[in-house]
């Protein structure tokens, strides 16, 4: 399933880029993140418990930044493995100036397998949509935090 969209951040490109390229802040955007472990600037692992009303779905998520062009573009390969579900996601971000802010075009190609995958697309697609919205919302928060931190400094 491919999801895409764009989002405008009320922050300069450098700040958005800083968040996108900081493993710690990216890991914090994952839904239900319980712990994370930064291996190097390109790779990190997070343990998440994605909140589903019927019981959380525990997953170990490995992220690998596969491509980047400073201030412009980043591509990440995200693999999730949990009991009952396997997730593979390729996500891409492209930044450009939008007035004083930053426009981020994003896309995510999400593949889910395992018993959860058998629950049916009409259930899964809204779930994935909602989780992606969560990530974007958290990203917004991270950008605002980074902006605030920058202003303070």
């Amino acid at each position, binding site marked *: 399933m491919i999801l895409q969209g764009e989002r405008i951040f009320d922050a300069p490109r450098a700040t958005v880029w800083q968040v996108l390229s900081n493993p710690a802040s990216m890991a914090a955007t994952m839904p239900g993140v319980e712990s994370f472990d930064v291996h190097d600037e390109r790779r990190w692992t997070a343990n998440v418990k994605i909140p589903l009303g019927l019981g959380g779905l525990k997953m170990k998520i490995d992220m690998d930044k596969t491509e980047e062009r400073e201030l412009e573009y980043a591509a990440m390969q995200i693999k999730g493995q949990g009991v009952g579900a*396997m997730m593979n996601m390729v996500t891409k971000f492209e930044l450009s100036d939008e007035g004083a802010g930053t426009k981020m075009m994003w896309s995510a190609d999400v593949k889910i397998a395992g018993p959860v995958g058998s629950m049916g697309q009409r259930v899964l697609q809204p779930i994935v949509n909602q989780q992606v919205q969560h990530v974007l919302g958290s990203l917004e928060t991270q950008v605002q935090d980074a902006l605030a931190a920058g202003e303070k400094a």
Partner: protein
Amino acid sequence: MGSTTTIAPEKVEIQAPQTPYKGQNVPRKEDRRLVQGQGVFVDDIKRHGMGYIHFVRSPYAHAHITSIDVSKAESMKGVFGTLTGEEVASLTDPFFQISSVPGGNIKDYALAVGKVRYVGEAIVAVVAETRELARDASELVEVEYEPLVAVTDARHALDDSKPVLHEDAGGNLMWSGVYEWGDLDAAFAEADKVVKIDELHFHRFNSTPLETDGALVEFNRGVGQWTIHTNNQFPGFAAIMMGPAMRTGIDKLRFVTQDIGGGFGNKITSHPQLVVCCLLARKLNRPVQWTEWRTDFHMSMSHGNERWFHDTEVAVKSDGTLLGFRTKALDDAGAWLRYEPLGGVIWAQVTPGMYRWRHIRLEFTQVATNKAPVSPNRGYSRMQHLWFTERVIDIVAHELGLDPIEVRKRNYIRTEDMPYETPNGCVYDSGDYAQMLDVATDLIGWSALEEKRLDAAARGKLLGVGIGSTLDSGTNNFAQSRMINPELQFSGNNEVATVKLDIFGEIVVTLGTTPQGQGHETTAAQVVADILGCTVDDVHVRSGHDSYWNSHAGFSGTYASQFAVTGLSAVKGATDMLAEEIKRLGSVILGGVPVEALELAEGTVRIKDNPEAALPFMACGAIINANNAGLPDDLDVTLNCRYVYRPPFQVPDIERKFGNLTLTYAAQVHAAVIEIDPETGYYEIVDYAAVDDCGKRINPQIVEGQVMGATAHGLGGAMHEVFEYDEEGNLLTPNFYDYHVPHALDMPPLKTGFVESPSPFTPLGTKGMGEGGGAAIHAVCAAIQDALRGNGDAIVWDSSNPYRRVWEMLSSPDTAGGRVSVVDA
């Protein structure tokens, strides 16, 4: 040949059966245990100390397995052990392949070795002391994968850019062959019109028996023998697959079945799982049990063959006379050839469908894809081809502006031409298709249809009517497998029955078959009772199959519409032998009366002219079994008669692909009336008729039950049942939640009718029946196309027509409907 017709028989109270039992609705002997929950199905069997198997299955459609670690699972409390693909590869040889090369080169083991090729493929088996623990432990097995691109569309499986499933085969082509009979050039030269159809698609589904596969396997270490309690419906085939792979003799594999919860062909290819059970029973030194759950079944078992027909050209006269066709059939085998590529020849049993065209060319190609392996499914391979011929008839009628009924009648093989030799040498034994069509159209009130159409229109509905006319070819000549692979040494067919008269006068019948609801215990008893002159209650037919009974042969099993021919002919043969023996014994005991002067009646052998002089069966059984001193030396009587029925077959001409492939041809003509809601594509079947001709019916009620069941399967397949995959190879319909089968409220009114054309080729005039040719699918497709007349005029090109597809055909007929053109020849 005398044909009798009964239209939609009124249900009558079951009366006490009278002799002859043949032709009577004798209540089924099986029912008493089944209605009380006293049947023995495979999951009901338990053994002391048994372990439960749970399979670790692949979440990926196509991936290398880079590592497997079972240590955590094995160390869990309550776990007895595991089995991996690597162990299987060292303990067994790959399964024998039916295919010639390239498909013949693939190496198929009971568990995935090094690579997975479809979602749900078994990788590791875990055994624990409870079912729950086995599943818990299976979650602790760590498997690392390196995913590969999945091949999910057969039409692109041979593209250079696509990955190869089986390196050993060198590509995704499994088997191909060209079939051509008659003179195509002459036919197209004679034609007034050529109707061209770009693409037709027969979808993937199966009959989803309510009981899934399973086994309980015990290993007797002392004698090196496995006892396999299972619901496999073709143990003869399983044994041929398993023995060589397991490096053991056939007699070391004892197959036992009792009650089987539906099969429909879907329970033929469980041999890989049975091998896993056997290896584990030996490795762990305890009985092991495997039950496949519904989602496992959907993901991994016996999908029906998905088939495409490309570049079809039909040579036709302006009046609708069909001369011939050429087409390219592309068959999607899924990931493994578990019974394939037999589908590549089985279709040829019904090459011309029910029609008289004599010039036919079909290029058959079978490819591998990253989907569950296909295996026989009710109507195996013929259903796909018959759907094709029926679609062609309706498309030709549509394009030439002719009445599909008239086109059928003009082209049906005529009753006076029976037995009819088809262009490829098959012999249709008997039938009157035109009469069947009349019965069917009468049942749905054909003459009043235009009024009904107007009435529907007034309610905002589109009414459509469609015909499906099909054949149920029964009793295979297994020599046809040589058209797939000339090196195979199979031919003919056989079935066994043993009938004995035991010490207390019990008549005991042992079959070689593995019934799954077809009532073999009952129909066999009817045949025996008529011959022996006793009641059906006097005849005890053993339930199920046990290879220890030694009442089976190489092709024993219950599949391919043949029991009424092979099974009952074997029963008849064995009972005739027993009757003869009883008479010879009676002749001695009754004082040397000639055998010809004796008759069997009322449970005795007696003198025809003096019925008082009678010897009860009980006495016969006692004398031979326990009181035989003084009998003449030359009285060669055991009262235990085993008979092997062998149908009259020759090996076909493999070069020309010409010869008789099946013994009998039951026929079906179905008629469906549907109403479509044009706003939503939602449709309902508002009237339905199923007319069947399977020759002599031993138990009409059982026959009618098969007709109605096959109709329900066809309707389910036509409307909602589909094994649909996404591009990554995930099955989107992995259980009954999304794979919607007909429920009670979904069943339309169903009228049945019969024509009875006895087969001249079988001892009882019977024909195999039960598969039903998928007639309902054809009828529904035709009805949808009829309803769309004047509403976009889309051509129905897919056999699966859920509401969304009907809506697509209504809303964008040019893109959603099939592409068809007519050119003047």
